[in-house]
């Protein structure tokens, strides 16, 4: 989520957060002092295997200037079948730090540091992730690049000890000059498979964030993975809500 909000909004639909509604972050932290409660439901209808449904509660807080801290704990259906860093019930803590605002010559740059603590089902070791984030606008079109690397604290079985992830996305406010409550987001991503010897998950997602009231943003998204292992997503879907105060 970014601090694009004007002074009379608690949350702003133009701010982008991972999973709200798609797996993408922009380079801006929420304003210092802001608190956001976020939640969503995400389904992953896989080409092989059972459909996973994830509940995504999250708290974010603008703890310092240009920095937000996050606490999250995803809950999955069928938790025994999960592989990779994000296990059901893991405690996820994150810090996003924005270095600068975008200017005529410079994009906005940020770094995200995250840790998953093994409080969840079948989870071992502390997993850590480092992500670099860049946001650059061209007129009203904003381009976002995310590149991250996750290190598993205690990989199990065929799990990779580390995986990279890259996302390129654009966001665009719909309705100018008469309407300012919707933002469209489209992303293309690739990430290493959780198991060794498998191809990258590569897919596209599209999402919409809608400013419902001064304090509430609704989001929804769809996606698919067109390359990857046999259990890759055939259809991804997310609906969520964010409340700021």
């Amino acid at each position: 989520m970014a601090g694009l909000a004007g002074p009379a909004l608690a949350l702003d639909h133009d701010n982008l957060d991972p999973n709200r509604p798609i797996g993408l972050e922009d380079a801006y932290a929420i304003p210092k002092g802001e608190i956001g409660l976020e939640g969503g439901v995400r389904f992953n209808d896989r080409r092989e295997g059972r459909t996973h449904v994830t509940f995504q509660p999250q708290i974010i807080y603008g703890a310092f200037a240009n920095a937000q801290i996050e606490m999250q704990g995803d809950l999955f259906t069928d938790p025994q079948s999960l592989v990779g860093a994000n296990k059901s019930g893991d405690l996820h803590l994150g810090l996003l730090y924005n270095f600068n605002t975008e200017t005529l010559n410079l994009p906005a740059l940020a770094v995200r540091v995250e840790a998953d603590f093994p409080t969840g089902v079948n989870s071992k070791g502390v997993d850590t992730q480092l992500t670099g984030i860049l946001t650059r606008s061209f007129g009203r079109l904003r381009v976002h690049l995310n590149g991250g690397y996750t290190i598993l604290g205690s990989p199990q079985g065929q799990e990779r000890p580390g995986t990279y992830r890259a996302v390129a996305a654009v966001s665009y406010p719909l309705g100018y000059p008469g309407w300012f409550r919707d933002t469209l987001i489209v992303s293309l991503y690739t990430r290493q498979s959780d198991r060794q010897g498998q191809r990258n998950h590569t897919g596209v997602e599209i999402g919409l964030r809608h400013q419902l009231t001064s304090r509430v943003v609704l989001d929804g998204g769809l996606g698919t993975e067109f390359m990857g292992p046999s259990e890759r997503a055939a259809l991804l879907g997310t609906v969520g809500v964010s409340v700021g105060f």
Partner: protein
Amino acid sequence: MPITTIIRSLALVTSAAIAFSSAGCGQFEPRDKRFYYRALWNFSLREDLAELDSEFNGVDFGHSNLYENLLLTGGRDVPAIEERARKETLAFIASKPRLNPNEEAIAPTYMKLAWRAQNTFDEAHALHRATYDIAVSDEPDKDRAIRNVLAYYKDSAYAITSKLLDHRRLDGFPYSKTFRQRFPLFNATIWSYHYLQVAVYDPLLAAPDLPAKTQAVRPILATYRRYLDVPPVDWTFMPLTAELSPQFAARYPELAHIFDNLHMLHDNISDILASERLPTWESKRAEIYRLVNTYYLAAADATNPMILSTEGAHHH
């Protein structure tokens, strides 16, 4: 992935980021967004007096739309400003928006040019909104609430000075008055916004309850809408708080000064963006930042030559 590959990749990314940053280090600046003062009266105006709130939401569009269009047209295209941009603004105001627009979506280029000035505006606009919310709310101790929100505002590095500034001198730079002379209709529209913003304070604070407040602002809204239809091009200077809400200005002089200084800074930036004396975007940015840093931010109070020593010295 081998660890050496990871290290090599990180080194490459770091080097690229450093090179990138060095190339534009003159424009490396923090974003520094700050949340508004949190209180039970937040959004009282929006929830209880939407008729007035929607007008302010429309006003938010106007300044940003003007700045973006001035920047992109070089400040010389009269039809682009007086006809197209002004009418876009009037159309947005007429739509009675329930929420304020995201100004970065309206003026993406201007925001990249002068973020420091925009953040200064945002904090002062948040103070404006807070004082309306307090005035409309059933907060029993409005003086205390206003003292608290003013203290919160003054704690910001982006706070505009609460001292009385010499607006006549601030309107006397070589490029001053360029905007109003070239674009009199849009300038009068901007001053009409400022009329609305400061004229409602006395009626809002004097009325005892919400129905009375709603009735009290209606004549001002009617006057404002007439100004939008027929912009008051005969005005020679921006509206001042003490002239339109004298009781508010007497009771809260620091707020009155901040809002007048804010509106003067708006005029300065319109002139800078319109003036050929500052022909490049870089020169416009440098002058905007010079004014903000030297004459407007409270952080410059100790050395600010525009501060008037007595109230009596201020006249237009």
